[in-house]
């Protein structure tokens, strides 16, 4: 499934973009299957807005977003859920865990949607990212760094053709970034999926096929 953006522009940013210019906003862009795209987005250029638009969490934009044959404008809720469970996964910048659930429950509620990953695998991933001892801790008691690692694992618990990442490592130190990065690469390759990572600064977390400045 390829991603096509056709003259996309978020309405709140419209005037600003007119002045500044962008490699994505208002452009015709197509990302082919399993491309690794890095979107460098300085503060205030609409990085999170872009990710949210791609994941259909915002609809206040002009232009169109097309995932494969599916256009997001006016997509019905069941098709959207199918897209989100089978083809498109996301790591939110603000993690978005259920604060009242434990680490394990946060992962299990996602895992049980598709059963793509076994309980043992989840367990080993927790171990790899160093948060296995937090399994039964409520999400609201976790540090940002821990929450971010739970969010990363959660995003990998479903089949996907594209993985969207919005500053996925913002709360992690180098050692933990490296562990998370390796896990992500491994799963992305397993699914032969593409990825779009949006971040503030240059990085070489992944072998990008293209870099765009928002």
């Amino acid at each position: 499934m390829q991603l096509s953006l056709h003259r996309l522009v978020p309405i709140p940013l419209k005037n600003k973009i007119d002045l500044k210019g962008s490699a994505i906003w208002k452009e015709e862009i197509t990302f082919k299957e399993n491309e690794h795209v890095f979107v460098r987005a300085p503060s205030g250029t609409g990085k999170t807005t872009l990710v949210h638009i791609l994941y259909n969490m915002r609809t206040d934009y002009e232009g169109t977003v097309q995932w494969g044959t599916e256009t997001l404008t006016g997509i019905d809720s069941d098709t959207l859920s199918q897209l989100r469970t089978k083809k498109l996964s996301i790591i939110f910048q603000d993690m978005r865990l259920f604060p009242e659930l434990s680490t394990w429950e946060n992962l299990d509620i996602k895992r049980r949607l598709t059963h793509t990953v076994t309980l043992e695998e989840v367990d080993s991933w927790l171990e790899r990212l160093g948060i296995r001892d937090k399994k039964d801790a409520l999400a609201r008691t976790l540090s940002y760094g821990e929450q971010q690692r739970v969010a990363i694992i959660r995003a990998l618990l479903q089949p996907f053709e594209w993985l969207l990442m919005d500053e996925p490592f913002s709360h992690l130190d180098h050692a933990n970034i490296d562990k998370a990065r390796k896990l992500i690469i491994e799963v992305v390759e397993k699914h032969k999926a593409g990825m779009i990572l949006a971040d503030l600064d240059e990085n070489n977390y992944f072998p990008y096929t293209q870099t765009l400045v928002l």
Partner: protein
Amino acid sequence: MEKKQKLILRKLLLGDRTKSKARLWAALIALCIGTTLLLLSVMIWWNFRELLQGKGSSDSLGSTFLSISKKITDAKMGRPELTIFSPEEINAFAKTPQVQDVGVLTSNHFPLYASLGGSLGFATEMFVEGVPDRFIDKLPDDWHWQPGDRMLPVILSSEFLNLYNYGFAVSRGLPQLSQTSIKSIAINFKVGNGSRTDNYSAYVVGFSDRISSVLVPQSFIDYGNKTYGNGITIASSRLVVKVKDPSDKAFVQYLQDHDYTTNSEQLRFSKIRAIVEVVSAATGILALLLMGIGALVFILFIELTIARAQAALTLLKEIGYSPSFLGKFMISRFSPLVFLTVLVSAIIAITVQTVAAMKVKDLFLNLPYIPGWQVWLALLISTAILFSLISRAITRAVR
């Protein structure tokens, strides 16, 4: 849906349901009372109808069989041809919607002389009548006669016995008679005159509350009129009709329009019926009102629960749960409560019906122990409406 998944969803979406338990109970109790009242209102209407339209012969208020004759006015006096029913009139009457069956009372057209020996000794000329067996309220076992039989069964109107016991016997100092003692007395019927005279032993085999007459089997009347009569068939002036619902206004109107009379006492049910209809309707309106309020509070409760869980709901949708899946989950959580209230109402309705049936049994009236299909239909429709309101509210709130 898996159990673990259900548990987590319950925690997320219904976690603090306990906080407003009182409201939930209030809603459920209102719903339950509303549903019960609705069932009761249908049951009041249905039971009254059952009493009026009993299918057997002794199961109703006794009002389904009416004896009909033409009103004898001053102008009609001395002109018996004006008080008889022509075949056309009988046919027309039988075709009116309320009338289920019409029977003709045939009287004897031959001389009949009854005499009794012993201490009660009396002798009198009298009349007997025949009516098709299906119009007799309690058919005695030995209710048959064929030419050649010397024994003749007789059914006496219980009113005649009352007239004798409380009127004649008291005034003349004669012994009062019980129904069983009457049954043991043989009455001699001397039938016919001149060349053809026969004697029969008549026995009272039963009493009728329905037909004010002295009844003998139809076969005896037919035989007698042919054998001892003058051969002229005379039309009847009295009909017995089986009526679906004697309190029906159209039926009462028909009788008035054609100048027919009946035991007006038996039409008193049209008044009772009006009252029952008002009671039933009032209960029904109250029931609908209560059910409406109950449903509203229940739906508001559901919406409140969903609104409280809005953050979790949004996030669930973001990680891939579809609104229809979540809607089904919510419906599966709330519908058992609805079905529980419906079940409680149904149990109350059955209990009330059983108790009512036992109570009226003492009055020699038969009512079914289980409410009829109309009651269940009302329950089914109200539950379906309630359920669709609730599932629509949930679907809307989850979307």
